[in-house]
């Protein structure tokens, strides 16, 4: 042993068992304090490098790749002289020999050892639990197994309605499954919530599509060969195709127990994170400190710092005193902050505020004049102040509600935080540190990289942005908010200036607001905006348009154009088909193609021939070349389909007739399906309608392009007329508020589906009627652009090549 140390230049060997977030953080803190001091080797059972486990539900959902949640690069390990052995499970610790043994052979010696084995999923005693189709949710590998299996399933049950269970359910929803969450308690997230807020959260999550079964203890998995259902202790049962167990975690202590270390619920550690062996430390979820174990990153990172201070000798006095727990979560789009212990009982002074119609609930529990716990659900603008009051153990203000609403009655933000309070509670980054880096010129990405703030759960990023806005001065790039690059105004300010100055043409806007710089890339966006603002009073300068919008056809790679006539709802006729065939032959169309939007594309038409092609077709423009409503795909529906519950073709045709030619910030593809089988693929459309018994579901923000995104449910209505009204309202709101070329998925995510529902369905700001009027006026202003074939805007409009 000694000889080996000598060979290594006297470097002490540090072995770390575990490659979770706590292990990674401990090694990072150690190599920060004493670079090169130890020869460090990390052993992890998982086949991956260290990753951000907090983001696993996004990996499960498929919105993040496994690689994108990796925390450290290969170079990082090299630079710090750390050897990482992935897929290397440690079998045993020999404290006498100071070695560890690896599964499948091999061993390594240590001078100091850190046990960071984390935790294992808690699996309740359920009969038949080894049936194929039952999973736990803890690792990247679990996510991959669940996602692969989900492809063959329609329904999934999640056992456990705590934070982890809801996260798993959220990830599974993205796979299009019907999800039932089974919970023993009468409401979800019982660790963080009370019955009232729990019921409120359950309602919100149900409206997004989750089903709950409360007060159900699972007894047995049904099915042999594969999962068919679950039976509960009350003798009820449900059918399901797969089961995900997420009932919490338990410290992974087997190695420590086998090695004879002191273990209770976790590996017992003192304030220096030392176990009962003076050469063995422990950190993370496997640690029990002063009788408590922790399952959130912030305490684990605190432990990692103390451990590093101690093991390197950087600060031998460092001591871990336990953590005060506050969490900030986003549960399927619903903000939730949970602080300390918000249970009621003797000695608790409770302040409660609820707005059930908005899903907002706030509760403070003060004990002995200090904030002991809090719940903030649905609206968390006061979170920074509440968390700071708790973590600083400060006296509560005489009027407790001041913590929720601010003493001045104004909304509280990062602005109100004391300088020493943490902005990022995951990494405990203080406002002072953040502000100093901002003052040094850091923008968000650099700020996050340098301070680590915002790189845990990411929940504090809005506060970081607010601080950058306040302290960043010239550091922040204001161009990020401009509607188009060359005019330094965001969309609302730009519209206001255009109205105030009566600017009706693109060149007028460029001259008056853009300093005369006629950036070509900015012109189409300005033209689109001016048309939306002024409608028929817009002064149309054709040179501001992209070529497609000058000639109302889509340019192809050889300079010819494609012609797509409108076929409403994808329903055509023998007469139309005959005309299309004749036109294709007469004008030498090179390809006749059925499009994905249920129309017919004539490809290879010369610019000069466009007017004659349109005349001979006698059909209106399908707008397949521009940022406007493109098509409304339909399935056969009630009229013929034996499963149809709604007349999808009729509604599709009505939608297309009503909104044809309405220009939008980017193209919009729509669909109507006649039943839940969704044959028209409505849930990956910008606006997609699905017939349900007694009405229609309207989904918005779907996409199946570069990125695939399932649309969010905006509303369920009972009649076609209501569907047309809600769709029109959404389209108009999108027209007024989206950035140029921002497609609906990005827009819906930016505004938030909750907010859209509040605005467009609940009409919380009283805008609905105005939006309905605006879109109606736009519809009445519709004119088929192909009529310009008969009356060109100018004589050269369809002349592509000119003979000299």
């Amino acid at each position, binding site marked *: 042993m000694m000889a080996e140390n000598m060979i290594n230049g006297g470097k002490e060997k540090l072995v770390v068992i575990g490659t979770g977030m706590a292990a990674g953080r401990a090694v990072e803190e150690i190599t920060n304090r004493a670079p090169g001091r130890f020869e460090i080797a990390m052993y992890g059972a998982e086949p991956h490098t260290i990753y951000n486990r907090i983001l696993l539900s996004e990996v499960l959902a498929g919105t993040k790749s496994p690689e994108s949640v990796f925390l450290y690069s290969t170079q990082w390990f090299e630079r710090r002289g750390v050897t990482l052995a992935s897929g290397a499970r440690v079998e045993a610790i020999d404290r006498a020999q100071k070695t560890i043994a690896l599964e499948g052979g091999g061993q390594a010696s240590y001078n100091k050892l850190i046990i960071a084995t984390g935790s294992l999923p808690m699996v309740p005693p359920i009969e038949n639990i080894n049936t194929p189709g039952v999973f736990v949710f803890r690792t990247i590998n679990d996510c991959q197994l669940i996602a692969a299996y989900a492809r063959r399933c329609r329904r999934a049950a999640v056992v456990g309605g705590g934070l982890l269970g809801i996260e798993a359910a959220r990830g599974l929803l993205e796979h299009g499954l019907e999800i039932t969450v089974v919970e023993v308690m009468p409401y979800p997230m019982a660790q963080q919530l009370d019955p009232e807020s729990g019921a409120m959260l359950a309602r919100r999550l149900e409206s997004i599509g989750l089903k709950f079964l409360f007060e159900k203890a699972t007894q047995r998995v049904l099915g042999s060969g594969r999962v068919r259902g679950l039976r509960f202790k009350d003798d009820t049962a449900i059918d399901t195709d797969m089961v995900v167990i997420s009932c919490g975690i338990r410290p992974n202590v087997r190695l420590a127990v086998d090695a004879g270390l002191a273990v209770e619920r976790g590996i017992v550690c003192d304030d220096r994170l030392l176990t009962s062996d003076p050469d063995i430390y422990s950190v993370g979820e496997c640690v029990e400190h002063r009788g408590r174990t922790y399952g959130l990153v912030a305490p684990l990172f605190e432990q990692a710092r103390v451990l590093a201070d101690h093991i390197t000798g950087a600060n031998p006095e460092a001591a871990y005193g336990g953590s005060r727990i506050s969490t900030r979560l986003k549960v399927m789009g619903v903000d939730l902050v949970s602080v300390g212990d918000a249970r009621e009982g003797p000695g608790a002074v409770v302040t409660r505020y609820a707005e059930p119609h908005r899903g907002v609930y706030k509760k403070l529990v003060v004990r002995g004049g200090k904030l002991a716990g809090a719940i903030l659900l649905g609206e968390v603008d006061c979170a920074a102040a509440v968390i700071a009051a708790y973590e600083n153990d400060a006296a509560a203000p005489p009027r407790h509600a001041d913590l929720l609403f601010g003493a001045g009655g104004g909304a509280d933000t990062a602005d109100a935080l004391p300088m020493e309070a943490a902005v990022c509670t995951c990494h405990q980054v203080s406002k002072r540190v953040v502000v100093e880096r901002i003052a040094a010129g850091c923008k968000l990405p650099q700020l996050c990289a340098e301070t680590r703030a915002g790189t845990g759960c990411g929940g504090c990023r809005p506060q970081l942005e607010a601080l950058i806005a306040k302290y960043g001065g010239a550091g922040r790039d204001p161009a990020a908010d401009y509607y188009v690059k060359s005019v330094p105004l965001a969309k609302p300010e730009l519209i206001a200036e255009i109205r105030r100055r009566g600017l009706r043409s693109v*060149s007028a806007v460029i001259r008056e607001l853009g300093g005369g*710089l*006629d*950036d*070509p*890339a*900015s*012109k*189409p966006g300005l033209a689109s905006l001016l048309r939306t603002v002024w409608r028929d009073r817009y002064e149309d*300068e*054709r*040179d*501001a*348009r*992209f*070529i497609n919008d*000058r000639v109302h056809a889509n*340019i192809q*790679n*050889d*300079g010819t154009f494609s012609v797509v006539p409108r076929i409403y709802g994808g329903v055509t006729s023998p007469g139309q088909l005959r005309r299309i065939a004749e036109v294709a032959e007469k004008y030498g169309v090179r390809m006749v193609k059925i499009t994905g939007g249920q129309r017919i594309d004539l490809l290879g038409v010369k610019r000069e021939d466009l007017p004659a092609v349109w005349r001979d077709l006698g059909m209106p423009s399908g707008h397949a070349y521009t940022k406007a409503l493109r098509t409304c795909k339909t399935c056969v529906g009630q009229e013929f389909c034996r499963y149809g519950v709604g007349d999808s073709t009729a509604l599709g045709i009505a939608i297309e007739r009503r909104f044809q030619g309405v220009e939008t910030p980017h193209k919009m593809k729509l669909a109507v399906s006649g039943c839940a089988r969704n044959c028209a693929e409505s849930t990956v459309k910008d606006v997609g309608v699905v017939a349900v018994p007694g009405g229609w579901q309207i989904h918005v923000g779907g996409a199946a392009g570069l990125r695939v995104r399932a649309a969010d449910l905006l509303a369920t209505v009972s009649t076609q007329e209501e569907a047309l009204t809600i769709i029109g309202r959404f389209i108009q709101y999108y027209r007024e508020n989206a950035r140029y070329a921002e497609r609906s998925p990005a827009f819906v995510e930016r505004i938030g589906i909750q907010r859209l529902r509040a605005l467009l369905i609940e009409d919380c700001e009283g805008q609905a009627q105005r939006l309905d009027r605006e879109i109606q006026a736009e519809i009445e202003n519709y004119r088929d652009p192909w009529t310009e074939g008969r009356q060109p805007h*100018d004589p*050269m*409009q369809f*002349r*592509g*090549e*000119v*003979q*000299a």
Partner: protein
Amino acid sequence: MRSDWMRECAMETDNHTVSSNSGAIALGPVGRIPPGEGRCFKIGARQAAVFRQRDGAVFALQARCPHQGGPLADGLIGAGAVVCPLHGRRFRLSDGAGVDNELAARSYPVEVRGATIFIRGLEQP
């Protein structure tokens, strides 16, 4: 330079056909190009993209984008450049130099005299 070119133009006998042994060609009335747009002019087998800025200045570049052959005359113009409609490569109108790209388009001297556009230097293909 410029006065020589003017003299050559003055030698033109017919505004609408090839003339002058130095290769200056009349392309016809400037009104053939709507303000702020471009058009592709064909002279026999030869062709050029000719642009007319809103301020009246006229420029000519090779007709096909050096990137993948897109019709440059159909591009949006502004800030002294044209943007190819196919893949967005930008070229300076005055000399064809690529803006933010390594490619370059050939440019041709072009002038409006009276209301007629004249171009020079078009090679036989």
